[in-house]
């Protein structure tokens, strides 16, 4: 798209892109810090309506990949198209229009600590719409019940919430504008197995009823089994994508250890 494209052109292109079957298209992405290369020309397509899990060892650049897509990290080279719109080289505040269509859940929830949970959920609404306060209050209550938080959580401040409740509140904020694309950064890390399983269920349910595309960074092999359609493994600076079955056949030692190691076998029932 040329820089001269008008706002209307951009909007039209974005709408056309949103109909596309590939929501995120990454081509030849290179990321690195200093002389250390983290991603070496990786390609990845995320399809509409799928739940993609991203796994990899510590320091393999899972979060960096997520941050590159949403514009918090500037790649060295390569192309990332979200809904058909190139995001590489744009500052986060230049991604207007895209931000309306995605929601990001950060690892610790990243709730604004000076606001109540309800106010947190309403931040995106205030930024992007001019809904009346009463409508926002109704919608916030609805989002809270969608993510399974009790009514009285609305008036609480993040410091008064447990870790699991913070994640749910963070998810409610990420879902505030009904995005089509949801990014989750280690959604179940730090949760007990029961809460983690509930969270998996919740993501699955929301994904089905809202038709979301989910990009999920996780370490949790139970989560992968329960929710994802495909899995992208970051290994040796490259990426390998497949279903769990396909990846179980993979010859790479790390991938083999991950899925066929003791924990993997236990979780996959193999």
């Amino acid at each position, binding site marked *: 798209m040329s820089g001269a494209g008008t706002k209307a052109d951009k909007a039209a292109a974005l709408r056309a892109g949103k109909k596309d079957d590939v929501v995120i298209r990454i081509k030849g992405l290179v990321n690195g810090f200093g002389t250390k290369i983290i991603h070496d020309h990786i390609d990845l397509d995320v399809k509409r309506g799928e739940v993609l899990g991203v796994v990899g060892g510590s320091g393999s650049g899972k979060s960096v990949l997520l941050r590159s897509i949403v514009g918090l990290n500037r790649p060295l080279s390569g192309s990332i198209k979200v809904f058909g719109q190139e995001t590489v080289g744009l500052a986060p505040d230049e991604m207007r229009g895209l931000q309306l269509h995605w929601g990001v859940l950060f690892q610790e929830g990243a709730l604004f600590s000076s606001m109540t949970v309800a106010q947190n959920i309403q931040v995106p609404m205030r930024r992007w719409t001019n809904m009346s306060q009463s409508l926002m209050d109704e919608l916030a209550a*609805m989002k809270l019940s969608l993510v399974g938080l009790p009514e009285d959580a609305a008036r609480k401040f993040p410091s008064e919430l447990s870790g699991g409740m913070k994640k749910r509140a963070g998810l409610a904020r990420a879902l505030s504008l009904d995005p089509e694309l949801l990014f989750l950064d280690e959604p179940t890390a730090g949760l007990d197995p029961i809460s983690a399983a509930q969270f998996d269920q919740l993501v699955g349910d929301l994904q089905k009823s809202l038709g979301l595309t989910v990009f999920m960074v996780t370490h949790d092999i139970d989560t992968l089994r329960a929710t994802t359609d495909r899995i992208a493994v970051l290994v040796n600076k490259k990426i390998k994508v497949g279903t769990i079955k396909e990846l179980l056949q993979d010859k790479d030692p790390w991938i083999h250890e991950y899925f066929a190691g003791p924990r993997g076998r236990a979780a996959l029932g193999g």
Partner: protein
Amino acid sequence: MVKNFRVTLPVDNPASAKLEKAQGRARLVCVGDWTVSELTDLDEQLSDLDLKGARDLEIDATGITSLDSGGAWLLLRTKRAADKAGAKATLNLPDKYHPLLETMDSGHTAPPVTHPPHTGLRGLLERTGEGTVLALRQGYDLLGFLGRVAVETVEAALAPRRELPWAAFIHQIEETGLTALPIVGLLAFLLGIVITYQGADQLARFGAQIYTIDFLGIGFLRELGGLVTAIIIAGRSGSAFTAQIGTMQVNEELDAMQTIGLNIAETLVLPRVLGLIVALPILTLFADIVGIIGGMVMTYFDLGVTIPAFMRELGNAITVKTLMVGLIKAPVFAFMIALVGCFEGMRVERNAASVGKLTTRSVVESIFLIIAADAGFSVLFSVLGI
């Protein structure tokens, strides 16, 4: 009505809801993209609906081309409102949106969220009351903390087997005393100049410029030197105490110390309190000397008083008692600064805003206490005739 739309992305099919009424039957025809960009408009259209006299309401949403949870909520809300008003409402929806609506209908019965009150008389009263109770509790807790530190101090002193944190104590003297010398010295010097200049100006009207030196000596040694030093240290070290201990609190270091069996008052509070009690009087003495030098420089240039003459006049004006009256207050100030600094640090909660808030509060509280104590000393000294 002119509107300031912030959602700039137009949808493919603008959404609308039209009501058709005929003989007690009402039909609400919903078409278009019922998504977030259209919610504001839809909300207004639906709020204006007049359902009076309708026994049946059919919400015909089969023409909806796109639906998200916000749009689904509006449909659900309309249906529930009609049900409540006594009309029998039915909702027809394309099949693919049934799961979404079911999820929401089963889970969501909650009324709109409420916010803590911010405005109005009631909110003001509520906050005033809350603030008052908080301030009283704060004072009560501070007293409790004082007692705890006192008990721990006595225990530490009476149990010589235990290793006293000497290294930390020396470190605190260096941190709060030695490194503060440049800033305290500079400010005391400047203050000496200012006081002398103003004093000389006023006293010149009576031809009594020479008493500038008495004014400077007594004023600086008795009051200003100690007060200014204490205020600088409250801002410099009191805030540092709160931030250090507060960050440790956020990081769960204090909890870790307790599980290991380290005594927090002894390891963290005592070295700071004792260190500052040693450091602040020395700093005050230093400020007194540098302030007098500042005044001396000013009298030399402004009034032409030579250094020996200055010294003679100063010697007539002040005694050791003048100096001691100023210095005796310093350990009390130091105790209050360190105690409040540590106390607020330990009250930090586990969130980012808390450290900053309590650091500010620590400085404000210790400066308040310093000035209040100084006033108390003035009354005491005048009663004692010192």
